[in-house]
């Protein structure tokens, strides 16, 4: 058991640092710390350009195999990249869902058609993807999906009708993957299909959902007979649930690490603010700072433990089962403390139209962290049932 990285990995860390030092400058410097949740609309064209630069220089597709154009980096090397990227305050990644979730799913479960059609534009940082899972009546109870997919045998096209909701960054995306019912008589996990849709078509309407921070990362996506090719289904009709779950498995991999590593920057700024406001002299505030310092270290090391374990075991380790609940709750606490260290002055806004301060955004947006991607309550159900073998509830 070793927590330290090898000398060879540390040398790779130097390479990453040198590259970032040389390239995260000039026009890109203003992107520092930008584009994270609650700030999702900041500098979108510039962030796209930045991702394309990363792509040209070989910093996308880090985990993908070589024959799909990836870098086939080791787990350690991937971790180091995300850690160093976060350390310099690299901007929120627009292409994360495509690169980290869609691509691994297509590589594992897709056909050569999928690979040729979709992987190159993801790798190049050109095509952005979003996720069409949740529906108005399928939130925590995801298997209650109602969106219908019908195959038109004449035109050899799938037609999808229904409504998706809470779709992150749909308004900046080019494609959406959709879980829809291919068998109209089916219920629950059976009879679903997993589809790949181009968002640029007249039968799809995207409606932003304004959130409590005033911005809209989430959207409603209306599918009114939206179409895709016969081949734009991953797996067979009826196998959609297992494809969807495989995709969620990648969410526990290394790809979301970047976002969590970024919490350390938020924490460091919070601590500096507490120092400046003199609230850091108060014992209760100091306790909360100390606790978060411990939790951030544990979150990072738990990720390393989870990832080290993934390489060894096919089954999800307990460390992996608790990770979402842990970081989401931690981040919510971070958001609370960010405004508390500033005092009431930190809650002033220049005017009702102007963007909120980073602390205000953090405070408000982190309320969503403990809800999306499985609420804290659903996480506890999963932990008890899958981690501890307790009975399923009906």
């Amino acid at each position, binding site marked *: 058991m070793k927590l*330290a990285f090898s000398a060879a*990995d540390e040398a790779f860390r130097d390479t990453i640092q040198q590259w970032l030092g040389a390239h995260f400058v000039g026009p890109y410097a203003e992107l520092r710390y930008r584009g994270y949740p609650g700030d999702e609309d900041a500098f979108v064209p510039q962030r796209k350009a930045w991702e394309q630069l990363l792509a040209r220089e070989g910093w996308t597709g880090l985990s993908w195999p070589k024959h799909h154009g990836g870098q086939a980096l080791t787990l350690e090397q991937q971790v180091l990249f995300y850690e160093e990227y976060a350390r310099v305050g690299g901007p929120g990644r627009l292409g994360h869902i495509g690169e980290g979730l869609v691509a691994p799913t297509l590589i594992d479960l897709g056909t050569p058609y999928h690979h040729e059609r979709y992987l190159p534009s993801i790798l190049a940082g050109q095509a952005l993807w979003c996720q069409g899972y949740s529906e108005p009546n399928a939130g925590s109870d995801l298997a209650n999906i109602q969106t219908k997919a019908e195959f038109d045998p004449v035109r050899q096209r799938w037609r999808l009708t229904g409504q998706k909701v809470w779709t992150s960054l749909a308004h900046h995306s080019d494609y959406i993957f959709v879980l829809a019912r291919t068998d109209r008589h089916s219920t629950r996990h059976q009879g679903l299909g997993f589809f790949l849709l181009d968002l640029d078509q007249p039968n799809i309407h995207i409606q932003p959902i304004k959130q409590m921070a005033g911005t809209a990362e989430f959207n409603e996506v209306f599918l009114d007979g939206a179409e895709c090719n016969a081949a734009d289904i991953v797996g067979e009709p009826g196998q959609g649930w297992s494809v969807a779950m495989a995709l969620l498995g990648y969410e526990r991999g290394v790809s979301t690490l970047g976002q969590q590593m970024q919490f350390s920057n938020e924490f460091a700024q919070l601590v500096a*603010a507490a120092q400046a406001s003199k609230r850091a002299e108060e014992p209760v505030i*100091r306790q909360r700072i100390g606790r978060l310092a*411990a939790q951030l270290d544990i979150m990072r090391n738990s990720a390393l433990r989870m990832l080290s374990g993934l390489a060894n075991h096919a089954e999800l380790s307990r*460390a992996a089962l608790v990770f979402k609940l842990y970081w989401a709750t931690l981040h919510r606490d971070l958001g609370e403390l*960010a405004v508390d260290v500033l005092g009431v002055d930190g809650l002033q806004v220049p005017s009702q139209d102007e963007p909120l301060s980073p602390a205000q955004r953090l405070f408000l947006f982190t309320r969503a962290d403990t809800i999306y991607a499985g609420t804290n309550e659903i996480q506890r159900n999963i932990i*008890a049932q899958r981690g501890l073998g*307790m009975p399923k*509830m009906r």
Partner: protein
Amino acid sequence: MHFVLTTEQQMLVQSARDYCTQYGASKIIREQMSGVGDYLRNNWDKMCQELGWQGILVPESCSGLELGIVELVLILEQIGSCLLPVPVMSTLGQYGMAIARLGDAQQQHAWLPDVAAGTTCGTLVWHPATKSEPNRWDTAVINATYCSTKTGFCLNGEYQYVLDGGQADNVVALARDVDSGELSAFVISLPCIGVDCVVQPMLDPTLNIYRMTLSEVMVPLSARLTFSSEEGIEALLLLSALYQTADQLGGIGKLLDTSVAYAQQREQFGRPISAFQAIQHKAADMLVQHETAITAVYAAACRADEYLAGAISLPRLKQAVSIAQATASEAYQHVASEAIQLHGAVGVTWEFDLHWYFKRAKISALLYGDSAYHYDYLAQTALTASDDIEGDIS
């Protein structure tokens, strides 16, 4: 980086688990309650004969196995899981480690082979009977003294919380030069004129703790460990705190297993109580606490090995130990109280074992500093580092 147990470490854990299951069963522990100390040497002798762990930290040059802190922590975790009274922490972690770190070659050869042979038990004598700052747990509070004599040194001091002191053949005692305040470590062979050792009963009778008084104790020049230093001794105290977190981790795991097993078999309203969501969520939170403590304790163990290899600084080790101590202490207390609650009325009886763990959880949460003490240290570390933070959240 490979932050999970190696195959060899898994085998070590398995043999430790088997041993502790055999000798640490609650019935045996209960027989020993009349005086844990009487059984200590028995357990030690059996352990040395059957498992040979006594050489685990001793250098190969002194007939030891020269394994790491990680291995010791894994053994202590299993010992903690059944509250087995055996002087591993004191003899190997404290006494043996002090000589290995602070002794010169001659001193190592004089004392360590007897540790590796299983013939010597020892401990560390450091905690003052009275402290100017009650909740301070570093070398600054050490107030025993020594002065030079013609043939060696004369020691005076009153100590408490001496682990397994009543069964020790030798001790390493810490004291300050009466004039210069320089901190040194001395090996004292017992019995010895001027050394008085009395048992200190605690709320948790499975802990084997003593008070020790040194009155004009004369030791030869060779008794002063040659490489004694403030930093070297501070490291010994940090390691002691780390050992305790390993013991806590074992208790947490045992309570989780016991509580889940009970909830699965206890029936009310015609079904096992584990079918109720209120119970499942409690159990899930206990598992989260356990996983969090595993990460924190194992990370600190890895950092300790890195420190001993000269790869990281003492403050970095101290940070990791503080995180482990605060986290494992809170986790143990949480899990112990929830374990009682999950067991219902039988949980508060003397007959069930839970109260031993509940008591151990509280004592170990206060010994070596409560979580508030460690969070404050972590906050101070974060605040000190915040001077050169860029980015403003306000």
